[in-house]
């Protein structure tokens, strides 16, 4: 019994981190209606940044947040401004500009392979003060780094909720996501909102990166498995919904961990896709999505 409780809790912990990796994706989609295929690569960039920060300074790993999150915010901000915006302008009248997907895929190829070129194909693991630390509760072991990660996910979720609900810019972001043209007529400058949202989406990847580095490895294609998982999570949770992404992540985490106790891990992967497709058939807007968004 205790084993199952242990797996459920581990599933929730890892799941909330999956959710964290998906938040940026859902945020960008919610506003720009663009699936950012470079999402995993941006996570990778963040992980390399966090890894080098931790390794070179030897500071507490979570101090990396202070450096990596703003870094990725500006990275995303200018990536949107310089590369994506001109393409977006050309496709302004299309509800879901498909060419932008292709461009983000191009960015993905460029970033992943630049990382390979610069950092080589080595697996790196940061040795930090929380690496390998376990918290023992009634003979169950939970990795401290994942618990901190789940906590940070919660905090980020609360912050984003506050931001979107109460700040002026956050409301403008919501208005844009609901009706681009009407928002423009309010004097909300679309390209600026997009820059900010893309920056924030990338900054969320930065948070996820700092959470992952203390217990994960860093590698040029480390983002790829998270990428596909994030796609599944955001659709499951409802594209554009931040709480949906976090809860979707937790559901995936639980399926993965608990499912694996009854069947081979390769089948749980299958189970996730099956669950995903079933949800899509039954409630296409995702578990927490709104009808008008699909």
């Amino acid at each position, binding site marked *: 019994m205790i084993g199952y409780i242990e797996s459920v809790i581990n599933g929730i912990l890892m799941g909330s981190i999956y959710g964290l990796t998906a938040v940026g994706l859902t945020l960008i989609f919610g506003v720009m209606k663009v699936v950012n295929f470079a999402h995993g690569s941006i996570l990778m960039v963040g992980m390399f940044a966090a890894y080098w920060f931790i390794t070179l300074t030897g500071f507490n790993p979570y101090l990396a947040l202070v450096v990596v999150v703003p870094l990725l915010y500006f990275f995303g901000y200018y990536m949107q401004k310089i590369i994506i915006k001109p393409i977006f302008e050309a496709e302004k009248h299309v509800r879901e500009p498909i060419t932008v997907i292709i461009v983000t895929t191009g960015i993905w190829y460029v970033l992943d392979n630049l990382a390979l070129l610069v950092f080589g194909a080595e697996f*790196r693991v940061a040795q930090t003060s929380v690496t*390998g630390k376990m918290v023992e509760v009634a003979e169950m*072991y939970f990795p401290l780094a994942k618990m901190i990660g789940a906590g940070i996910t919660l905090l980020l979720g609360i912050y984003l909720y506050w931001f979107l609900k109460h700040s002026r810019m956050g409301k403008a972001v919501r208005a844009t996501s609901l009706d681009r043209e009407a928002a423009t007529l309010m004097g909300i400058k679309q390209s600026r909102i997009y820059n900010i949202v893309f920056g924030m989406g990338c900054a969320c990847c930065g948070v996820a990166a700092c959470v992952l580095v203390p217990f994960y490895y860093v590698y040029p294609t480390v983002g790829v498995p998270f990428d596909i998982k994030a796609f599944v999570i955001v659709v499951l949770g409802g594209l554009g919904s931040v709480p949906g992404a976090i809860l979707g992540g937790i559901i995936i985490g639980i399926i993965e961990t608990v499912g694996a106790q009854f069947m081979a891990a390769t089948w749980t992967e299958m189970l996730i896709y099956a669950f995903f497709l079933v949800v899509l058939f039954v409630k296409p807007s995702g578990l927490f999505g709104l009808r008008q968004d699909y």
Partner: protein
Amino acid sequence: MNLKKFIVPAMVLAMGTASFSAYAAEKVVKIGNILPLSGPSASVGIQGKQAREMAVDEINKAGGIKSLGGAKIKLLFADSKGDPTTGVTETERFISTEKVSMVTGAWNSSVTYPSTQVAERYGVPFVVPVSVRDTITERGFKNVFRIAAKDSWWTRDQFRFLADMQKEFGVKVKTVAFVYENGDWGTGFAEKWRELAKAAGYKVVLDEPYPSTASDLTPVVLKLKRSNPDVVFMTSNAADAILLTKTMNDLKVNVKAIVTSGGGHADPSYLAAVGKSAEYLFDIVEWETDLNRPGLKETNAKFKKLYGYNLTGEAVDAYASMYLLKDVLERAKSTNPKALQAALASTKLCGGKTGLLAYDCIQFDQTGQNKNASLVIVQVRSGKDGKMERITVWPKNVRRAGYKVVFPQPGK
């Protein structure tokens, strides 16, 4: 249809082929090498490439192929990306366009398998330094020669090792668990393990494939922990090896021994990445830096100076394969594939630079398998400076002098 979109690439291609044929004027022997230089197995691919380059550089500096008037070996590399179709295309390109004398590669069994079929069709020798799938040399091909040991030998030796350890330490192993990546390699090993475990009378308490692209392996480790085996056998690529080792250590999985199968566990970045979490682990490899072989220290020092890391099993096989090719070319006195095939088949290459290998001579049986290829088992220990070290422990006759094997490993 329009002409432009057809002519432009065609012209580009034509110019490409023209520039290739310019090489023919020089006195060179072209060797095609197919390796995964990008994608998930890029790191081993790059090791293989660097080792080949170092060997060929040495050979050429020492006067090239003397029986061919000092002809130089020229290496051509192609990136398979770990993808069979690309491997096949590249093999075809090497043979028909580049007119290489021999092909080597391709590390991923899934690439080597169909690529060797192409070489066989053209009658050009294909030397396989590493690629473990049994069937590569079991199709009655005349032109495929493998230096490395094959699957069934790896698993066989893992179980022999386990039997020897039990005898040596008087410990009885009753239950085993198998944890392996669900690719061709991992599932291939698992099939052999099942038979071997049955024959040895071990009870299999867990038989768990997992996707090697998994982002979290905690579920697998939790399951492993609950199945509570005496010994766990593992087959992993680099990323999953790192995750598994760290998670097993974190979740305090207690077993008598962990026996792994090279691959990810032998990757140079693996030990650096996992550190002390890998303590006491047993890994099976073809080769290890602490082997007592002539010239090894110097070659390793040179390699490390050039590329910044120690030789690996992959690198040594690749390195030796170049000296094998030199020997074959010297004996064949020709670059004709038929002559080369004959020379390869009658190889008995002992000592010299190939002496770096864990065994003395390269000799092929009728299937093209190097019959002397052997394997060793190493134990991972933290050294005095805290750095992790791989120490050869089995077979007993090559065990590092003075080393005391830790079996079973202490509890956590």
